[in-house]
């Protein structure tokens, strides 16, 4: 049973949200996880998602937007089916992260926070993704690819293009 009637989320996610607001001492602590789960399901945080999350937590839409706009991994516009996130933080930078990013830009024909015309890929330059030991690294949706070279990137991207890649949610 969802506490919100006419929820815009799937029944499973709605049930998960119902539970989520009960497990913290303060309801609004559930805000960031809810935004992330909502983004995973819808692809981005829509205005409708903002409103429903606000109702679930009992705060204003504005307060949800305040938090939403703070975090760069939360987006309010749809991204591609596969969101390629290339790390250029220090370890990756030293090991050629910018080269990987430039290569991605060239092969995909898009820039930072852009999406290919067919909606398959979008590209993002991100800060540390915690894979320093295997730098340079990138993350496609929630799947990691490390020890990258431009050639390896081509293989990875081709896998996704062919629908062979892992689509971890």
């Amino acid at each position: 049973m969802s506490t919100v009637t006419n929820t815009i989320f799937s029944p499973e996610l709605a049930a998960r949200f119902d539970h989520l607001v009960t497990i913290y001492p303060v309801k609004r602590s559930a805000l960031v996880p809810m935004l992330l789960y909502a983004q995973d399901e819808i692809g981005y945080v829509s205005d409708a998602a903002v409103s429903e999350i606000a109702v679930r937590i009992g705060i204003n839409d504005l307060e949800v937007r305040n938090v939403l706009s703070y975090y760069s991994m939360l987006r309010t516009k749809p991204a591609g089916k596969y969101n390629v996130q290339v790390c250029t933080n220090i370890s990756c930078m030293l090991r050629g992260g910018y080269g990987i990013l430039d290569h991605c830009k060239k092969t995909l024909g898009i820039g930072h926070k852009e999406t290919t015309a067919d909606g398959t890929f979008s590209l993002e330059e991100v800060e540390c993704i915690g894979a320093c030991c295997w730098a340079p690294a990138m993350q496609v949706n929630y799947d990691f690819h490390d020890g990258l070279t431009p050639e390896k990137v081509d293989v990875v991207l081709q896998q996704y293009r062919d629908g062979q890649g892992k689509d971890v949610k």
Partner: protein
Amino acid sequence: MADVTLIVDGKQITAPAGTLLIEACKSAGIEIPAFCYYPGLSLQAACRMCVVRIEKQPKLATACTTTIAEGMVVQTETPEIAQARKATLQLLLGNHPLDCPVCDAGGECELQDMTFKYGAAESFYAEPKNHREEQKWSPVVYFDRPRCILCYRCVRMCGEGMDVFALGIQNRGSSAVIAPNVPAQLSPDDLAHVDCEQCGMCIDACPVGALTSGTYRYKTRPWEMNHVATVCTHCGDGCKTTLGVRSTSDGSEIVRGDNRDKSGINNDFLCNKGRYAFDFANHEDRITQPLVRQANGELKPVSWEIALDHVGKKLRELRDTRGGKSIGVIGGNRLTNEEAYLLQKFARTVLHTNNIDHHRTADYVAFAQSLAGHGERTASLHDTLKAPAVLIVGGDPTVQSPATAWNLRTNVRLNRAKLYIANAAEIKLRRQAKAFLQLAPFGYNALAAYLAGDEAAALSATSDTAALSSFRDAVKAEENLLILIGSELRGAELKKLIDFGLTIPGAKFALLSDYVNSRGAADMGLLPDMLPGYTPVGATSPMATEYAGPNALGLDMLEMFDSADRGNLSALYVVGANPVARYSIDPATLKNTFVVVQEMFLTETAALADVVLPAANLYEKAGSVTNSYGDLQQVSKAGDRAGVRTDFEMIVRVADKIGANMQSLVPFGKGLRADMGQTRGVQSGEADRHAVWLTANNMEPRLSPFDSFAILDEIQRLVPGYNILRLQLLSGNDQHLSPAATPLVQISNRRDLVVPANDTLFTSGTLGRYSTMLCDLQQNEILRASNLTQIQTAAD
């Protein structure tokens, strides 16, 4: 709390434990600069301007978040601190445009002051400044993003202070920006807007010129205006508003209203009406010449002499031929006490009639009679800020008396006051309430009966009788309870509620009404059955012996119009009221009545008049007003308009034309005496110190019949409860007065004539229709509601 002693800049200071360092320093006369700190709001420590050196602490500490401790040694101005503040300013100025010469805040800007003080005008940052266009968030709130220094004052003011939460902060770091609650993508015109109460508190709190006011922006500079602190003409709270005035070719124009010195009864607060709705004075429809109806039925402008002659002659003739009983007088809710008093005295002693009334917005007669002999039980507006527990029955303070609501919210937030609310509607203040009792529609009388002990009334009061019972128990257990009563309760029911309240130890009462001097109008006896101070007509009293009026009760508002309908009302004298619209009077009713109206505009009533006399409004006259709580304040003249006269002057002139004894109507020429210069003794030839003192205190001798202080002297002498402290009044402070009624009249026998004005945040009776800004705000609300594209004026 126990006192703590500390040393600041080598000086020993003492303050109660728990005081913030910045406040302790302020009370010792040491100013620590701060942008984000605002007394009463939560602490932010965002600006880093208030850093001080505290001994034994490794780093500079923020004075706004440090509570004082015993033996603390603090330095507030050292080269090190100056350097830190300068660096902070340089960062703030990294994006802040140096457009001070065109900025509204120029001359009143905290950032400007600090830059002057610490000399950070030169910056290390050579990068281009980030420019963004200014945004129109509402007709009254404009946002200039690059000027914002992200102090969060507006965000906290709106959320904590106003309980509106229309402003937030979005993005991060140098992209961080104050955002309103209607984002561009959800707005029909693709521009961001605020959906709020439009109080303008964010503009007031803004230390720079990032938030500016729609009425004032780019009009003038602060030093080019004169600033006059007076009382807002709108609701019954009677907030002090400071009007910025500048000269025009036909008088002086009000260009700004704000809460500049924060010294008034309203402390920090001012709502949209006090801040913006002064513009009716400049409305193009304003009447500036007397109008007299000609034989062909048209109103024609004439000279003052002709108009006053005509009124005087006609009124005398009608009084002498058809008797005073055939004349009616209607006063207004925005007159000063002196004018209201003079009007009823004029009616009773010159026109010889008790047919005098005003638009009653609360039953003050029953209130005064119920509290007769309990003078100390009336509450001041200040009590709403301090009372440990508050019961509100009826009314909707958020909308009808915003300063009361602000004080109550502050009281709950800072003092954990307990708020009990019983209302038929889900009023917004219930969000601060400890207990909210939803009453049945019209359930107030049943509630009063139930509280008074009539268990059978429970079911008519509310459907939730269990809640009702626990509500009564909770209220009964309180002490020093403040009871705020809406205009829904009148007569016997009001008395029942007050009688119940009187059983609670230390309980205090206030009855909320709708306009600035609704209370004053009742106190001053604009009533057919009551002389000033709720002295019943016909009873033996000092008042009655002082001036002999007719002994019979007069006609009330509705009876006057009934009488006119029967052709028995020979004349009607209306001062600052619009009864034709308020009581939906058929214009034909007044066809055989000689109607004189003193008004600013051709209202429904003025349009029917035989003579219209152009009146000054409350911002264009001096005197005193009494708010719904009974707090008396001085009104000062701010604006001026050639051609109009104060109601006081017009009443005096009309009385003179009727041939009244002016010395007895206005006791001028007596009281304080003029002694123009020393003529004898060692100080011969020096200035008259007594006269100098009088002038300094604005207490010149009453040499003119137009001196309202002559009437104030009489009010003080005669009206029970009006024991005014002169210097308190003249220094612009409020003072609380208690009605001292004699409980002689049976309350239930009086006819209930209370008609609440039902004003919203953006209306103010007839006057509000002539305020362009209030009309814009109403339009703004309608457009938002109907989701249409908002009409945008060019932002630049």
